[in-house]
């Protein structure tokens, strides 16, 4: 049995996919979710082979939900918005179904999945995990998972970001969050005129910077508003200088 999960905030949209899937007895819908939160839970629990995912949903959108899952399954996006197509394929979607879609178009998407899975086995899925989901548009919030809770952090609340093994620590005024992503993921997805990677292990928002001080010969540290001292690498120092125009 191939396990499938549907995630869409419109019940009728889910029932349409259910109906189309009836032609494929080898697929079994293990759960049908109303939003990204339920989606995260269901995916961790059932480990499905394929999900059908809407993009605009309450609280967190489809892309943000995918970020919260460590080993995301294959994804077929279903949405009325055509402006996300590029982003969807960067997230290694199998296909991108524009609502309203007919049975033929749906069949094509499923064929695509079946083909990919017979050829490459589970490899594509493994590759997908390591790939970054790049965000071409400016990101104004970050979604993190804390146990079973999901938190949304507006980017202007971030004090700084620090590398931590396979994770990064995101510091805000009150708390610290862990997210399983690489530094370069944040470097690429945050607005480069507001966030600068000043060190292999640090990204700081310019809004938090108060002072740059020399430490020893050739080395500098950045002083942040909350008092934190962040080491600057040589290239980081130069980058900071260029962005600040000094």
């Amino acid at each position, binding site marked *: 049995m191939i396990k499938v999960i549907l995630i869409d*905030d*419109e*019940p*009728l*949209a889910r*029932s*349409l996919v259910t*109906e189309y899937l009836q032609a494929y007895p080898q697929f079994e819908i293990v759960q049908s979710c*109303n*939003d990204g*939160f339920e989606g995260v839970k269901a995916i961790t629990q059932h480990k499905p082979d394929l999900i059908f995912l809407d993009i*605009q*949903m*309450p*609280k967190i959108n489809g892309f943000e939900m995918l970020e919260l899952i460590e080993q995301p399954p294959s994804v077929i996006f279903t949405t*009325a*918005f055509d402006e996300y197509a590029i982003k969807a394929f960067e997230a290694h979607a199998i296909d991108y179904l*524009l*609502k*309203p*879609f*007919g049975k033929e178009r749906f069949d094509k998407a499923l064929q695509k999945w079946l083909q990919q899975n017979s050829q490459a086995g589970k490899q594509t899925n493994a590759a997908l995990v390591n790939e970054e989901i790049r965000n071409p548009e400016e990101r*104004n*919030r970050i979604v993190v998972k804390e146990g079973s809770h999901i938190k*949304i952090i*507006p980017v*202007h609340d971030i004090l700084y970001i620090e590398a931590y093994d396979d994770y990064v620590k995101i510091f805000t005024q009150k708390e610290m969050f862990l997210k399983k992503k690489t530094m370069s993921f944040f470097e690429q997805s945050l607005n480069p005129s507001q966030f600068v990677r000043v060190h292999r292990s640090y990204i700081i928002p310019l809004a938090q910077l108060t002072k740059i001080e020399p430490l020893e010969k050739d080395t500098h540290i950045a002083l942040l508003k909350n008092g934190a001292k962040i080491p600057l690498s040589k290239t980081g120092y130069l980058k900071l200088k260029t962005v600040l125009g000094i």
Partner: protein
Amino acid sequence: MIYLGWWIVWIVLQTFVLFNTGILSWYAAINDAIITNVILAAGGYVMISSIRFYHPRQILRLAWSIGLALGCVFLIRWIALQLLANEIGYEEFLEKSMIIRALFSWLMISIITILSWMWFYMREQQELESRKTNTEKLAREAELSKLRQQLQPHFLFNSLNSISALVGTKPEEARKMIQELSDFLRGTIKKDDQQFVKLEEELKHLQLCLEIEKVRFGYRLKTQINQEEQTHKMLLPSLLLQPLVENAIKFGLYDTIGEITIRLDARVVDYHLYIRIENPFDPETSQPQPGTGFGLNSVQRRLYLLYGRNDLLSTQQQDTVFTTELKIPQPV
């Protein structure tokens, strides 16, 4: 520069002509030419400046140019007599040539007048033209964005998707939804050319939109509409409520999880139609300032254009409720 060059050419020409008459010496000829042309240049400049700022009628322009030419000639005569008093035979020559000089001056000034008038006229036309194209471009863009906003492609596509789902399982409901969607779209198109509508009508139109949204979102969306009896016939700008309610639905549905209720109250306060829309929202996660959404901005702008007031639309956030308040002045 061109103006200066023009007069230098005339100085040289006039010097030769005067010298060739055989009456004047080189010195007298040069001086005469310089005085004449400098004064005419000044006169011409006065003409150009005055034309730049106002456009007198044909007859006035003629009188003005004759007056200016005469003034110039007398000034030339006076200065020339002062400077060249010692030149033998100059005074006599000057008196004899007065009529020709006057005609020449007038001709020069007229030419300058006509040329500069043409120049300014052309520039004005160009400016007018570019302003016109700019205005037209702006109007076209506004029209386009209005259309795009009214058609709300996402609403349309999602509704069609729901219909597509209903067709298989509940064809009767699918048919009903198609009907509602059609009525809604027809209303949107028809109201385009109507400035003001009765609240009653506007709410009926809105109800269609809400019914469709309810089919889409199922149990999640609930609405509550309360209106005072007198408000039925009160007037408001057409399609003004819709973006506000859409905003409320969007924030309610996408900012929270679970059931939501959108509330709309219509009352009469101080001869104004007073409408209040409430929707739940999450202050923690909602995007910065929900009040500055595109929908609210365009409503604000429209109200300003219609009533010249900025205080008719206001928003408030309290705990988890977002309130939009709208006041519509009624015609007396």
